[in-house]
């Protein structure tokens, strides 16, 4: 198995505003979101980061996608460091999260071309890829409709397509099925499996056990910014359903605190 992603000792802390301190009922000014996180992902697999809300999944994915910089540690994606070569990393990954929005004013057609050009894709390739992706997701009929006028599902599909305009080797998805109706969610998960079939590596974060069980080859469970368990699905589950296994681990970690 070829290691395509290796995160080593990733750390990220945030300063809490007074308002946030009040909400979290704490007087501590800094909060550690990710605490020395180390894990690897291999080419052609789907790796799932599983954890409750606020565990540090999104922060980890944002560091991997170079949107934020780790305070400590580094991650090497396909030979490039997120700390030292952020532009090269961005060229190798496709990142999709609900935070990334598309301008309402433009049409899918325009946006596909625009982002392809920013990724340096050749014009002939853009045309072919657009045709294939748009028809795969049924966007072709809405190619000239402004994003503002698209349905929520169609917007999500377009965001997915836009994040993959450059055919990246590594695809990072933050909560890929969040807020999607069952049909769109199915389209997305089917496509993720298709991408794996094409040899792409997918890193996704989720708190939905069934999604991990259905899709992921390997899984890492994050609690309070720590990687508590990491391995293949069968290794992590250890013969019991993932959900039960997760609660056991959660109790082990949190039990001491309560």
């Amino acid at each position, binding site marked *: 198995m070829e290691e395509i992603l290796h995160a080593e000792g990733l750390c990220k802390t945030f300063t809490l505003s007074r308002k946030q301190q009040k909400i979290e009922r704490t007087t501590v000014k800094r909060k550690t979101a990710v605490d020395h996180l180390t894990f690897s992902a291999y080419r052609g697999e789907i790796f799932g980061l599983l954890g409750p809300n606020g565990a540090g999944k999104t922060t980890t994915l944002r560091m991997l996608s170079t949107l934020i910089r780790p305070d400590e540690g580094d991650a090497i994606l396909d030979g490039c460091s997120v700390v030292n070569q952020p*532009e090269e990393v961005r060229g190798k990954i496709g990142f999709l999260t609900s935070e990334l929005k598309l301008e*309402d004013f433009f049409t899918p057609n325009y946006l596909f071309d*625009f982002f392809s*050009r*920013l990724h340096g894709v050749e014009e002939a390739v853009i045309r072919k890829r657009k045709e294939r992706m748009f028809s795969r997701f049924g966007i072709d009929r809405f190619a000239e409709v402004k994003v503002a006028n698209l349905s929520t599902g169609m917007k999500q599909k377009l965001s997915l397509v836009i994040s993959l305009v450059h055919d990246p080797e590594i695809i990072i998805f933050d909560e890929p099925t969040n807020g999607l109706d069952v049909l769109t969610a199915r389209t997305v998960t089917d496509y993720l499996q298709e991408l794996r079939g094409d040899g792409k590596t997918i890193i996704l974060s989720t708190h939905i056990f069934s999604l991990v069980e259905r899709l992921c080859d390997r899984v890492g469970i994050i609690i309070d910014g720590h990687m508590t368990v990491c391995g293949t699905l069968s290794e992590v589950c250890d013969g019991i359903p993932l959900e039960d296994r997760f609660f056991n681990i959660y109790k082990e970690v949190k039990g001491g605190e309560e």
Partner: protein
Amino acid sequence: MKSNIWTIIKKEFARFFGDRQLIFTAVIMPGLLIYLIYSLMGTGINNMIADSENQQITLRVENMPESMNELMTSYICPFCKLETASFTQDDIDKLDSKDVNTLLVRFPADFDQQVEDYNSFETEEVPNIEVYYNSANMAVSAFKQKVCSDIMEYNRGYTINRVDEENPTQYDVADESIGAMIWSKILPMLILMMLFSGVMAIAPSAIAGEKERGTIATLLVTPMKRNELAIGKIVSLSCIALLSGISSFIGIALSLPNMISAEDANLGFDYTFNDYIALMFIIFSSVLIMASAVSLLSALAKDVKNAGTMITPFMLVVMLCGLVPLMQDGASESVTSYFIPFYNSIQAMTAVFAHDLNWGFVAVTLGANIIFAGIAVWGLTKMFNSEKIMFNK
């Protein structure tokens, strides 16, 4: 790198030119509004002047002195109906009515003698002339100004006699029109304000708006360098703001004939090709520095509304810079002035409009503004790189 900048510029243009409402607010409306407002103002003023010019005014002079005869009959009389007769308090009271177009002037009975005595140091008492008029009547009021200044000129001729030897003979050597003086005081501020409003109409939405809508993050996950995004944004915003400025300029140019009546030929634009070229350079670099500054503030702001709040104090400072020419006599001669952004544009434009073009100062202005725009690109790049600024809400 070049192609990414161009891709961003094209996208900003597509966003702008694809939005009819935005084109109307940012490009068509400024010029149209200026044209309509200035034209209406000009037509109004010209009508008032024409009205007052068409009215026949009666000038009644009591005790017309011998010495004043020529002045009155040759210089003043063509503009009025001259009567030489005495008048009473009753006549003065009648002036109260706005419809009475009469100006009453009373000389002392022995005016010429009094002037002579004053000039030969026999007395210190200056001969007193009484003028009665109704200031609410515009035509009479304007005519009174003329009569008084003519009489004063005449009067001064006498008083100056006393110090004649020491009083230097004055020659006015100014070869420029009064227009140059007026334009150099007003136009730099107007141009700066128009360009600024152009930048204000688009920049906050292009940067703070993208932050607010979450679309900037989508751009930030592409392999494009942050400085390419900064340059692309600043250049495209400058170009669009320039269009807005040009629209305002056309509005002014078209309404000028309505503002200035043909008789005031002195107020005409008499600028050379070189002046226009210099002006173009100054305006281009001013737009660049404005777009840079507003982009920086917009990037710092949380949303478009916040950007507006942050830009307002800055706009007031720029406006203050625009007021400087009103308080000074001509453009600054100190080269340091041309290193300060905004102030340098104002000074350089003042010099051009005052027919005092100095290419050295224009070059310093251009250089300084480009350097500052470069610093702004660096700053904006830093901001695009800062997760705190880009993602904190």
